[in-house]
């Protein structure tokens, strides 16, 4: 167990430092912050609504993450394959779980840092009015959790290929499905012929209702379970894909 934490932490540290050693981190953070600001102020009319809450800020997160998180996830394994370092890391005396988890947590932590850097938004609403800080913290937590779910999809698609572009597109498509699964146009396609329970199952896969309820300030165990199981499932699939890798 001690080895598990030490190895996972070792991988995590290296990966995390790698983000800030390359321009990826800075580009990502700047674009993320710009998009957050743009959507909140220009599209959702933060000021005009005249409410001291961050609903207009958080409601855009699923869409911003949809394109930005796969960009972080795409390099996780594809890059290791391209440079051949995958051969190095998978022959070290550490388990596959430790490597997958270490890499995933590093990327998640990195997104967490980007998310924390949106703190001026919080300061703004505190200055303007009297927001429900509990709901804000809760929404941040939900947003972070959702980013983790997106990232786990990216990690999995990244393991499938050495081409980062392919990985990115696959991951965007899967995430888009997860976002839209509960959306009427998608459920309508199914409801024409599929039994009701299947429509319910598919729409249950959607990120949206789970994120929406956390965003309102309600942490429901079911929503928590949903995100954690998406992450778990995707990382498990990630492991299976790597285990069955054909050639380097």
């Amino acid at each position, binding site marked *: 167990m001690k*080895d598990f934490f030490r*190895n996972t932490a*070792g*991988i995590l540290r*290296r990966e995390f*430092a*790698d983000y800030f*050693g*390359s321009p990826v981190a800075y580009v990502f953070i700047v674009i993320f912050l710009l998009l957050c600001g743009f959507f909140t102020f220009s599209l959702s009319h933060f000021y005009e609504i005249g409410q001291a809450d961050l609903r207009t800020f958080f409601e855009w997160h699923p869409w911003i993450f949809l394109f930005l998180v796969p960009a972080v996830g795409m390099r996780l394994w594809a890059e290791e394959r391209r*440079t*051949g*370092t995958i*051969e*190095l890391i*998978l*022959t*070290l*005396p*550490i*388990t596959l779980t430790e490597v997958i988890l270490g890499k995933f947590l590093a990327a998640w932590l990195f997104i967490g840092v980007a998310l924390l850097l949106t703190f001026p938004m919080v300061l703004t609403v505190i200055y303007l009015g009297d927001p429900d800080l509990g709901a804000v913290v809760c929404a941040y937590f939900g947003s972070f959790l959702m980013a983790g779910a997106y990232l786990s999809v990216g990690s999995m698609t990244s393991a499938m290929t050495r081409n980062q572009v392919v990985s990115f597109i696959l991951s965007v498509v899967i995430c888009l499905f997860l976002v839209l699964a509960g959306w009427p146009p998608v459920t309508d396609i199914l409801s024409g012929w599929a039994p009701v329970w299947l429509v319910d199952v598919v729409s249950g896969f959607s990120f949206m209702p789970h994120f929406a309820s956390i965003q309102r300030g309600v942490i429901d165990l079911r929503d928590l379970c949903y995100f954690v199981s998406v992450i778990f499932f995707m990382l498990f699939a990630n492991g299976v894909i790597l*285990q069955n*890798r*054909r*050639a*380097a």
Partner: protein
Amino acid sequence: MIEVSHLSKYFGENNAVDDISFTVGKGEVLGFLGPNAAGKSTTMRMITGFLPPTSGTAIIGGSDIIGESLAARKKIGYLPENAPAYPDMTVIGFLGFIAGMRGLSGDSKRRRVEEILERCFLTEVRFQTINTLSKGFNQRVCFAQSILHDPEYLIMDEPTDGLDPNQKYEIRAMIREMARHKTIILSTHILEEVEEVCTRVIIIAKGRIVADDTPEGLMARSALHGTICFTIKKGDGKDIVQNMNDFPGIEKSEIVNESETEMTLRFFPKETSAPPADLILQHLLEKGFSVETFFMEKGRLDEVFRMVTIPDSIEREE
């Protein structure tokens, strides 16, 4: 000891490695030879636990690479093909990371990294990022990574690839020095390297072992093994060749090379163990030829290599 038993690997329908078995002991340096795509790298990847074999296994110092993968991987140092390393890391950062993953920490880690930097002549580039290094340095960084934990078993896929002659010399010297208390498997394309560092050679072609011998033993398979070459000042050499064909102890003779002033003759003795070199020399001198040089051929690995990897190549040429 590394025991490889019945290792096979299929990529779809393609049989990349076909039932390979061998055992390497301490003090041995096993050279893996073979044409490209013969299955050398695939075999090494299976021994190091990177690729799961389709069937068979490898036992590294008593630990099964499949059943007790972690224990087995602890004992191995591995230098993969093309010497991969994280391009954005500094040399010292990279080696520190590997040392950490190998279970070293604190002072012992720092000391070990310093020691290795010095040993692999990397001190001058220690703070450079790996993507700014030349090929030779890059290769040495990855080499350093493989011996960092002083492994009992060292597996190297083309360790001298892309190095200049001086660097090759250094790496080979290090391999020879380490060989005394380690078990080493290395693959290479360079035949002279085999003669220089390996105590044993396995030649693989199309996924199968086609030869397993000492370098000397392999060279002895060469058709030229034990033949004697004389370079003499030009005279009526052709005449000698004809006369010598019934010289005692000589199977046949031929002219290898002819120039304006001198010519080289090759004699194939009947018994390669007792070539009548002295008698031939005496005979030539008596006939009044001036002998410039003469030597006995040990055999040529490149010839044997072609012979065993493309079995009908010799006949085709003739």
